[in-house]
């Protein structure tokens, strides 16, 4: 940190000023000229929080994608299908048992098992053939999309959160002042906050696992040195399997989250596959902190985009991607 300040004093100053402005915009009561300029504070805060929580969801999907990619160099284009499968499985489970919380382990386990199947049946047979593996995952995603359409039809399913989570959370953030002088506080859906915190917990957990445990060291060594993988032989196969299962399972969990935030429906697979792609391209391929940063950026860009420049919301996302590719092709947190 101090190092950064010393090396890039101007950038550090700009960052500090921007951060200060942001903090002020979050906590202060907005003067009327600002409201005239960019609209109500409530809209701004909602976009901010929706962006952050959407980022949490994107992180859940993309972290599995980037983990699998980082270790196995497999661009798993069926990752979106795993997400959608998780959504449907979670929906069925929540309906069946009546417990929303049960949807998560169920989706995780089912999709992780599916991931194991993929790893054993497909990727292990084509080791080292990156492109062919990628093509296979495209085929699988086409097939899965149609099978799920067959099974669940084209309807939208919503996984409803339990009542204790469904209410709004009273925050301490002031959005405006009534004529009477009373302050209006922002209300924000509790479930989104809880899920975001869960995503952060999972992210931190993954980081700790990768950086502080022996198995994490093995995985990181594998990412750094492909040759070492062949040298360690059988044990790494188990790690592969574990990583694949875990990454797939995360996509499954994300499906449940997505089904709670929004809905489970055909087409969501492609949407979340694209989100994962953009997140890892922006963040840096194979990097967990990169996925977090990328997910946050993309989530915010999408939400702010849809509020402040609705026609070009999606394009904003891709402009970020193009910018990163042009100036830092390895991604913000990727190593060259």
């Amino acid at each position, binding site marked *: 940190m101090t190092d950064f300040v010393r090396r890039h004093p101007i950038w550090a100053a700009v960052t500090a000023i921007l951060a200060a402005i942001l903090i002020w915009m979050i906590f202060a009561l907005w003067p009327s000229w600002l409201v005239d300029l960019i609209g109500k504070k409530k809209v701004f805060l909602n976009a901010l929080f929706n962006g952050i929580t959407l980022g949490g969801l994107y992180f859940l999907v993309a972290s599995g994608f980037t983990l699998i990619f980082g270790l196995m160099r497999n*661009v798993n284009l069926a990752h979106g299908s795993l997400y959608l499968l998780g959504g449907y499985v979670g929906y069925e489970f929540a309906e069946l048992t009546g417990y929303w919380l049960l949807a998560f382990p169920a989706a995780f386990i089912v999709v992780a098992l599916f991931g194991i199947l993929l790893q054993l049946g497909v990727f292990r047979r084509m080791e080292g053939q990156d492109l062919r593996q990628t093509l296979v995952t495209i085929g699988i995603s*086409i097939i899965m999309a*149609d099978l799920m359409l067959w099974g669940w039809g084209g309807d939208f399913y919503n996984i409803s959160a339990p009542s204790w989570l469904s209410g709004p959370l009273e925050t301490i953030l002031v959005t405006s002042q009534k004529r009477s002088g009373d302050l209006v506080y922002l209300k924000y859906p509790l479930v989104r906050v809880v899920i975001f915190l869960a995503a952060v917990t999972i992210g931190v957990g993954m980081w700790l696992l990768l950086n502080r445990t022996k198995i994490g060291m093995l995985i990181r060594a594998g990412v750094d040195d492909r040759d070492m993988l062949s040298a360690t032989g059988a044990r790494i196969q188990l790690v592969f399997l574990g990583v694949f299962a875990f990454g797939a399972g995360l996509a499954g969990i994300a499906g449940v989250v997505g089904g709670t935030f929004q809905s489970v429906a055909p087409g969501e697979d492609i949407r979340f596959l*694209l989100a994962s*792609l953009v997140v890892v391209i922006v963040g840096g391929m194979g990097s967990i902190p990169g996925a977090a940063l990328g997910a946050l950026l993309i989530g915010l860009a999408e939400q702010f985009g849809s509020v402040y420049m609705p026609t*070009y919301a999606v394009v904003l996302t*891709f402009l970020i991607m*193009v910018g990163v590719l042009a100036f830092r092709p390895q991604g913000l947190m990727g190593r060259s």
Partner: protein
Amino acid sequence: MSVFDPVEASHAAPSDGRSWLERIPVAYWVVGLALLIMPAIAGDFMLFQIFGWTFILGLIALGLMFLGGYGGMVSLAQMSIAGVGGYMVAIFGVSAIDTISLGWPWYVAIPIALVIAMLFGTLTGWLAVRTEGIYTIMITLAIAAAFFYFARQNYVMFNGFSGFNGVLPPMLFGVDWRDPAAFYYLTLFWAALGYLVVLYISRAPFGLALQGVRDNPRRMSALGYNVTAHRVAAYTFAALLAAIGGILLTWQSAQISPGTAGIGPAIDILVIAVIGGMRHPVGPFIGAFIYVILKTYAIDALVTLGLAGERFQLLIGVAFLAIVFWSPDGIIGLWDRLREDRKRDPLTGRGGEGP
């Protein structure tokens, strides 16, 4: 990976004294003649819908074959580039949306469309080659999606969700080029030209160098080649093929909308190229023919079998998966293997050619 095994040894040198006419293989005469007299045999639907569409999709996929087979770069943006080509003739030329279309004559609109599409392709390539190998597919997929969403949301230029209709080919030489037979010859001409040009370039310095870049980029730069520039140039050329295909596609349905260049069609082009095979420029056309036949008739077949017609995607997916699993070189790979088997000496089990 075997999709990209070196395309059979190419010869830059003229190899024998026969004239070029004599060196054309018999198969070319047969297929060429059959294609030329097709309008005498086939009905309008066959000509316009089956063959016309095959040639168009084949031409777009031919660009991908050029990139993938000779350059080792698999791009999912070919359909978007085709879309740009189609959109640009609609915007600069004539369409039913006369609030947007500029209505310029075809000899201005078409060159502009081609140039813009090639610029778009070049930019795509420039972005994609900045990272190594396998990322290409991710980046180009993301670019394809970006174009789709952009076209769908932009009403000023792209007319949003509904796009343009009434985009028709010019009445050149007094011919209605959307008349089935005329359209058949029009698409056949461009498909054949594209095929021959790709075949020719594969043995010209540019194509040879591209194959060299695919096999060993480090060696190529130690021979004085700018590897990045070569790759980007390959994207530009592939974009030209896609743009021609895109304009023809727009004329065929007389309209262009975001769905034409959606993510599904983008992946379909890859499916076509892979099913046909990326080792030879004939592959994309074989793949396109199979795709068109399936797309046209599979629904009926499925319904007869008691399945819903929508299961077409399943069929395509399974076919694609089967090809990737068992014959990475696509149908032409299967064909080659069959020929090899027949040539094999039954006693020694060795191939009939070479030592």
